[in-house]
């Protein structure tokens, strides 16, 4: 008997030991980036997007291209050149190097899209967050939204451009005066879905003020929704710029932009197609890379995809 007692002892059961969590600590943002960069396609399209953006913001500084100045306008031999070692994208109807024109045009289009998207998304999120919470504001904003959204966005921008006249800031104004509204409506609906979930009721029962409710409870849940907004908004605005400029009510002729290029070069589409192909390809690549990167990032920012 004594021997067994020596050899066998009762194991102590430590209740707290069973509460220990093995495994590394979780961090939301770290997991977002890990999930994102695990994909080779994500890295490829992000690299492409960054190169295109950097290129269009740096190259024009070097080339010093200015659409108001056409140094070769009196040298017809420099016009309409096909792509060559000297002019990678060829030259246009005034002897401008298309490589230079494309990058300064992309820079202009991206600048407009970035500024207008920042305003639309910023205002849309702010108004939408309050809209989703306020029972008093809801019917008023809903009425405004219903009236405004009856007119397609592109028609609204066109009307506004007619009123404001052509120009950089005029265009941003035309894009943003009503542009935030549909984003605010979208955010409002998202907030309403999240608002009455139990964890928010719990916060209400703890007396959490509205401001912290929005910053700690609502917005962190909307990272992927906001990412989705951004990747849809920027290419959308690039398109709007193109359409407005193509219609001749966008930017004035002294501004280079993707829309301006398509407007001017479209008349040569049969004879000198390279003049329309290069701006078109660059624009396509910019748009697609925004979509792909944005979509993959939105996926990665949904915690259900983590691990």
């Amino acid at each position, binding site marked *: 008997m004594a021997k067994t007692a020596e050899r066998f002892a009762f194991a102590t059961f430590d*209740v707290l030991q069973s509460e220990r*969590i093995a495994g590394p600590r*979780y961090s939301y943002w770290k997991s977002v980036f890990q999930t994102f960069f695990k994909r080779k396609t994500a890295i490829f399209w992000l690299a492409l997007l960054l190169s295109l953006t950097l290129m269009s913001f740096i190259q024009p500084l070097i080339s010093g291209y200015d659409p108001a100045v056409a140094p070769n306008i009196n040298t017809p031999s420099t016009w309409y050149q096909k792509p060559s070692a000297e002019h990678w994208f060829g030259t246009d109807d005034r002897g401008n190097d298309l490589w230079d024109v494309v990058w300064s045009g992309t820079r202009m289009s991206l600048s407009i899209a970035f500024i207008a998207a920042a305003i639309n998304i910023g205002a849309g999120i702010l108004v939408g967050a309050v809209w989703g919470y306020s029972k008093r504001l809801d019917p008023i904003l809903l009425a405004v939204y219903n009236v405004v959204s009856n007119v397609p966005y592109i028609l609204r921008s066109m009307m506004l451009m007619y009123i404001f006249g052509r120009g950089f800031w005029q265009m941003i104004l035309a894009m943003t005066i009503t542009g935030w509204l549909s984003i605010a409506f979208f955010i409002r609906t998202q907030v309403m879905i999240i608002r009455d979930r139990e964890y928010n009721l*719990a*916060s209400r029962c703890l*007396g959490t003020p509205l401001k912290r409710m929005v910053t*700690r409870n609502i917005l962190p849940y909307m990272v992927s929704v906001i990412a989705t907004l951004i990747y849809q908004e920027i290419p959308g605005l690039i398109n709007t710029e193109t359409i407005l400029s193509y219609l001749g009510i966008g930017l004035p002729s002294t501004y280079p932009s993707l829309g301006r290029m398509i407007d001017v070069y479209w008349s040569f589409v049969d004879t000198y197609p390279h003049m329309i192909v290069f701006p078109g390809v660059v624009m396509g690549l910019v748009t697609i890379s925004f979509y792909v990167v944005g979509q993959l990032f939105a996926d990665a920012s949904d*915690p259900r995809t983590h691990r």
Partner: protein
Amino acid sequence: MSDVLLSVKNLEVTFKNGKENFTAVRKVNFDVHEGESFALVGESGSGKTTIGRTIIRINPATKGEIFFAGQKISGIIDRELDTYVIRNIQMIFQDPMASLNERATIDYIVSEGLYNFGLFKDENERREKVFKALNDVGLLEEHAERYPHEFSGGQRQRICIARVLAMEPKFIIADEPISALDVSIRAQVLNLLHDLKNKRGLSYLFIAHDLTVVRYFADRIGVIHQGELKELATAEELFARPLHPYTRSLLSAVPMPDPDVEKHKSLLIYDPSVHEYAQEGPSWREVFPGHFVLANSKEEVEYRAAFTTNSPSRR
């Protein structure tokens, strides 16, 4: 009996969906005494959650009044009273998977209420309060840095309890706190709530959908059906002398530890048409001391007769 802490008087809650109105709670009356566990039991959709949410002011009361520690807390109240209510009445929700902010650490979740009312002098004191609340529910200090999705259902419900405890409330509404948990950990959470009540002198409104859970936990039980209280008595009394046919049907669903009883037991199904309310409608009557039932005078006589002549052994 000790002082009344919470008093619900003639409560009615109506939801408006466009033109349609739906009255989820009708003419509900009950008191919760200091240090008491009062249970509300009824099937799903009977209005239990609505009552809990109305007390804690998530839903407005359409009619009737609610008093807490002698003050009227329903309707429009001033800021000071609102703060008092929030600090003293807290709620544990049914689904621990849904009631934690997934994007916040346990540290933030447990101290959320402390932040809201500045209930600490410095960071050290806040951390101490968080650790104490976690320890009180059997969790570890190192859990503070983790996120909710790293925890099991039972652990998450204990985090919810810790967050409530950090506020040091007088009164806790526990809305089916164990029904979403695995059977194996239900007793653990129930015992925890029971111990906390004794240690801290808490009072509970405990909501459940069957009588099994509340039998040993609750001091008094109110039985609710389709938004109306049907019967109210101490737990012992209710099990010994169930009067209302709905209570008897709930009781018939409680499993008995005696195989002979269990074998011969038949499930009763409550059929509201057994009541003959055409001539005389029901009212809230005290049939035995402290034992109330919704009945008309004919039923009252029958109910009383059923348990005064025979011993309360048949079920």
